[in-house]
């Protein structure tokens, strides 16, 4: 064995362990904070003490569900997320069909216009909506929040539906119509089922984004309608205790559930392959 190949092998070993070190550290950095949060949520102490907790208890969860403002805002968030999802998916799917099938000038421009809320910082959207809706005289908190959430989730729904529509075979719909189906029948029995993956992915994204949003909701919330994340942020700024850790555990569980659904219905590779992640 000559010196050159020995040097190359040493170089490889160093580079390899460096890469694995970075990967290990990176994954640990991603996982450890979440693990700590989950463990601390079961801390039996009544104050915020160092890791690890000496004993475990569910009392932070009890405190969480005994807080009226958290329960009210959780209800608001859930209702809002459901309405946002239904509206975004309906409007987005229709728009995707229109964009895919329509034959009109400026189609590409319209598509990118519909996706443009993705590149505008959420705070700017929230602040802009606040000013505009106040001027327009729309003061109902729920209505404001709904509009804000639909604006930011709609691009995802349009994008995922459009992707699955363009990816599916157009000729199947044509075949149905050649065989005598009306346009409406062909749409409901062929086109829409073919779009299923895109519609479901869009719905999951819309629901998750609506449940999590802070930047827009903080501007549009009012005492009559406050979302869970907004309540949690103000709690976090007022007193940093472990009820938020308990809330985090619940939210992580909900997200994990959504992820399992996403994997079962769509499959991760589809999601990654389409590259539909913005931020």
């Amino acid at each position, binding site marked *: 064995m000559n010196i050159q190949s020995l040097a190359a092998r040493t170089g490889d070993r160093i580079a390899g362990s460096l890469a694995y070190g970075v990967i290990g550290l990176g994954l640990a950095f991603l996982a450890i904070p979440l693990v700590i949060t989950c463990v601390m949520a079961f801390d039996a102490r009544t104050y915020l003490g160092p890791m690890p907790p000496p004993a475990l208890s569910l009392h932070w969860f009890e405190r969480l569900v005994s807080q009226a403002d958290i329960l009210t805002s959780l209800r608001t968030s859930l209702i809002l997320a459901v309405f946002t999802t239904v509206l975004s998916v309906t409007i987005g799917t229709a728009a995707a069909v229109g964009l895919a099938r329509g034959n009109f000038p400026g189609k590409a421009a319209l598509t990118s216009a519909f996706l443009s809320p993705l590149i505008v910082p959420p705070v700017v959207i929230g602040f802009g909506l606040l*000013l505009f809706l106040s001027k327009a005289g729309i003061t109902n908190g729920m209505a404001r929040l709904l509009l804000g959430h639909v604006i930011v989730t709609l691009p995802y729904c349009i994008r995922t539906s459009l992707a699955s529509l363009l990816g599916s075979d157009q000729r199947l719909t044509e075949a149905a119509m050649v065989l005598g189906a009306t346009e409406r029948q062909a749409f409901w029995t062929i086109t829409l089922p073919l779009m299923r993956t895109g519609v479901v992915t869009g719905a999951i994204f819309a629901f998750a984004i609506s449940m999590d949003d802070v930047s827009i909701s903080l501007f549009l919330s009012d005492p009559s309608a406050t979302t869970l994340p907004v309540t949690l942020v103000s709690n976090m700024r007022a007193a940093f205790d472990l009820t938020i850790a308990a809330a985090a555990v619940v939210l992580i569980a909900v997200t994990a559930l959504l992820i399992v659904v996403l994997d079962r219905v769509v499959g991760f590779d589809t999601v*990654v392959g389409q590259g539909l992640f913005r931020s």
Partner: protein
Amino acid sequence: MTKVRRQPVAISIPDRRDAALTLGPALLVFAFGFLSPLINLAIESLKEFTPGRVGSVENAAATVQNYYELANQAFASVLLTTFWIGGVAAIIGQLVAFPLAYFIVRRISPRMRTLTLGFLITLVLSSVLIKTYAIELTFGSVGIFRPFLLTLGLSPNSREYINIVVIAGLVHSIIPVATLTLIGAMQSIDPRLLDAAQSLGAPGWKAHLSITLPLSFPALISSTLVSLTFAISAFVIPMVLGRGRVLFMSNVIYTRFSDIANYPSGAAISLVMLAVALAVVAVITFAQARRVSR
């Protein structure tokens, strides 16, 4: 393989009514909920500030005062903070995401791959709030990383300590997204190129340096810029982790709104932020266009 036809010939929307039916609702939402507020924001930013009301006074004098006021030391330092903290976070994110993406694409069993992807997608979809809180719990007053940072000689109330925690918060969100972005590009690199380089005598690290890196370079650039866009429009992370001492542009907009109710000034900052975001996106688009044309 070319698609036979993109425009369906047999079926197309027969009349304007169907187009209005499918595209109408989205257009309505877009115009009312997005376009009008942005235009209003632009108008508002040119209005004179009158304390104590939502929005400017009707027929307020047009002025560029709100923009002029931004050209001061304080706002310049906010802009600088946003960019350098965001930039550092974006780069650290790529340094981890790049090897991680390669590892997921080439070095892992299908089962582990699903597990790792599931973990990353869970991170992308889970609330910024949870991640921010988790970082605070980890690096904060009782966090297990606190002694580590203290041994580095950082006082917990120093600006450096807070900067590091904010960067950690941003990196935590950037790594999963950047990894998922880079996976796509790595999948399209032919692994045989690497084998060829190595069988011709190149050591592994050199083969990666001359094949994997250049071939995924355009994706790396756009992933960096996407991470940067994310970082400079971040709101919750600097707000909670920055403890009021690290301010990003979005935090200043919120302060203008919540503390002093200076809406015209908030609108002016919003437009500056919008311009910055659009500029970064323009660079991304340019980079991608070059990638396609090559």
